[in-house]
């Protein structure tokens, strides 16, 4: 067992930290980027591409970076620390991995270079109002028509769905709306006739969109993976996504904890720094404990995200998400409380970490949802 990063991994961490750290050092600048039409900096997206980050999940043979779950973790921690706005999670973690694991060799040869150079931005149009966190709950349907398919349905809260140039859409091709079999994935041009979307800002400063599909026609070649077998692919990528979100959350929690420690050591009341009060020290220690427990589960998730045994993987990834969510809530709330009024303001970083962490909690399943999944998987003891 070895928890050390390799030299290459350290190099990756340093360069990503430098890029994102510098770009997001200034909250005012972040606010400006947030207000643009895309909601992030295209220039910075180009620099992600230059560093090879947009090719992260793809194999070197296919022109990728050849990164695994540990490299993903390194990048996502930096995204969390920096409160980065770019659609790295939506386009690379979700879109990229769906392509990597689902697309045909021909599709990969076409798509990967475009994803890697930043010209193609993907979003995963999957969640529907009735589905909540159930990944296999899909009512949007696709029917065969001539040499292709026609898609019909509504997707809600598609993260970065407004700025994506192509969408990967899940649709039912057979079975009932909540069957795990019978789901198929389609690659759809954002500008396809019948597809409409309306962008909105999310609570944490990112972007999302509902996506409507009204008789959207796509060719047979738009199918990603095997018809009716998309559910398993979604589950696999969902687990990779949770491991990535765990890393982003740990990056954000670590930064927020550090910010809070600094504040406790500098803010004076009653003639002393408030960090001299034991009641605040003990809460700071409890935050540290929550952070380290979360970090341990972040590593565990990275280790288990690609595990072959489906039951063990399910229990492990859901266990990680519960721990991450619990730690995120405790650290977020504690940080605001210990900062006092300043923690409540838009102009200070703590509140932005708090908001991002809160939104991560309800992305790919909240604690209750994952408790049910762990229960169904028979617990975490033997995972």
């Amino acid at each position, binding site marked *: *067992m*070895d*928890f*050390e*990063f*390799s030299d290459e*991994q350290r190099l990756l961490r340093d360069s990503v930290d430098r890029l994102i750290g510098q770009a997001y050092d200034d909250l005012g600048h972040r606010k400006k980027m947030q207000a643009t039409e895309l909601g992030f900096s295209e220039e910075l997206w180009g620099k992600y591409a230059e560093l090879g980050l947009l090719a992260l999940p793809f194999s070197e043979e296919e022109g990728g970076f050849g990164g695994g779950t*540990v490299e993903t973790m390194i990048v996502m921690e930096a995204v969390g620390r920096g409160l980065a706005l770019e659609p790295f999670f939506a386009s690379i973690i979700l879109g990229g991995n769906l392509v990597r694991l689902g697309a045909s060799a021909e599709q990969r040869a076409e798509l990967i270079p475009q994803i890697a150079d930043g010209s193609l931005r993907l979003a995963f149009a999957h969640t529907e109002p009735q589905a909540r966190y159930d990944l296999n709950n899909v009512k949007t349907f696709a029917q065969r028509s001539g040499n292709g398919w026609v898609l019909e349905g509504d997707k809600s809260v598609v993260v970065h769905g407004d700025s994506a140039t192509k969408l990967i859409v899940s649709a039912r091709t057979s079975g009932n709306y909540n069957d795990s079999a019978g789901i198929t994935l389609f690659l759809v041009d954002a500008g396809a006739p019948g597809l409409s979307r309306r962008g909105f800002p999310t609570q944490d400063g990112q972007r999302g969109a509902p996506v409507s599909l009204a008789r959207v026609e796509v060719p047979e070649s738009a199918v990603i993976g095997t018809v009716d077998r998309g559910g398993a692919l979604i589950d696999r990528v969902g687990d990779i996504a949770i491991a990535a979100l765990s890393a982003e959350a740990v990056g954000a929690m670590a930064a927020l904890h550090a910010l809070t*420690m600094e504040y*406790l*050591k500098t803010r004076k009341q009653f003639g002393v720094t408030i*960090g*001299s009060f*034991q009641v605040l*020290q*003990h809460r*700071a*220690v*409890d935050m*540290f*404990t929550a952070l*380290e*427990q*979360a*970090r*341990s*589960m972040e*590593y*565990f998730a*990275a*280790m288990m995200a690609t595990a072959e045994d489906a039951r063990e993987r399910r229990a*492990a990834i859901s*266990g990680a998400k*519960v*721990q991450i969510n619990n730690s995120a809530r405790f650290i977020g709330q504690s940080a605001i409380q210990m900062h006092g009024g300043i923690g409540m303001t838009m102009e200070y970083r703590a509140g932005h970490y708090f908001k991002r962490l809160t939104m991560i909690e309800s992305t790919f399943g909240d604690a209750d949802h994952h*408790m049910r999944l*762990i*229960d169904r998987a028979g*617990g*975490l*003891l033997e*995972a």
Partner: protein
Amino acid sequence: MDLRYTAEEVAFREEMRTFFREKIPADIRRKGAEGHHATPEEMIQCQRIMNQHGLATPNWPVEWGGKDWSPMQRYIYTEEILAHDVPAPLPFNVHMVGPVIAFFGTEAQKKHFLPRIANIDDWWCQGFSEPGAGSDLANLKTRAVRDGDHYIINGQKTWTTLAQVADWCFVLARTNPEAAKPQQGISFILVDMKSPGITVRPIQLVDGGHEVNEVFFDDVRVPVENLVGEENRGWDCAKFLLANERSGIARVGTSKARLRRIRELARTVQLNGGTMWDSEQFRHKVAAVEIELKALEMTQLRVIANERARGGMPDPASSILKIKGSEIQQRTSELTLELAGPFALPFRDPEEELPEGTNDFTLGFGWADAAAPTYFNNRKVTIYGGSNEIQRNIIAKLVLGF
């Protein structure tokens, strides 16, 4: 980064499992699994089996019977002991006085005491805490005054675990009350419990058991050759001992074994025509503890894997092991109590031997009569070894820099 056990580590774990399953008597392990304490005789029996196979003192220097194991091997060994409900080697002997003598003792002390400590030919107890020196240990008042070739010890120790069984006691006593700092005038002295002037008075704990004692020293004469290390430098020994005590402090194996048992037992306890395991509410409570425990296990493994890389510098994450480990241990005892429900009510005097097979008054739940005493008793784990509040003070100072 590779978070899997290596093939060597897996093989080592199998070796340990086989040893504990085959060599440690099954009835002793079953008793442990049901939450009952092993008797001193059983503890001695098990430690001697381990000692015969060189497995009682792996943490000691190799020349005194230790093993040149990696931190990961030491961890696996400890976890397998806990996971198989094996009575662990007596911590006072193996983790406390043994390493102190091996590090600070004279050759004569090592030769005489270490083999006896390893084999529990002498049972040791710890004479640290006093009525006025708990968390503030350096405030201890027990005095040792030099008189020719002897120290004369006067004072009182308390919370002395199994002093009623012990042959020897390692005592922290004040040899220089004039020292500039309270830590500076303390010595580490080995005392024969048969010495005239020692009185052991039992303290009964809330679980009804007799685990700890008060020990009174009334003009007890101890030969000066029983001083370990230098006079007035006993605090060094105490700090060394407390650092050693961390081994297995998270007790992941104990909590794992308990959770496994809770899962099994819940299927035997009736509820609404089904069993307790049919209750989603109860299963979620168990799963919530399993998540915390998995996180703790990973934290423990991080600390161990980084130990060599950090060159002996403690990992900041190691400081949370005691806090989190003890809290989880308490949670598992709560879950067992909740599972036992009304069957936890009957009190069985632990001192009283029941005839074989008699547990009628627990209505067939042999394990249930231990549920409440274990729960009561486990309140201690957030108190001893430096209470969890003291641990938070330490982390605040040493890790967070307050």
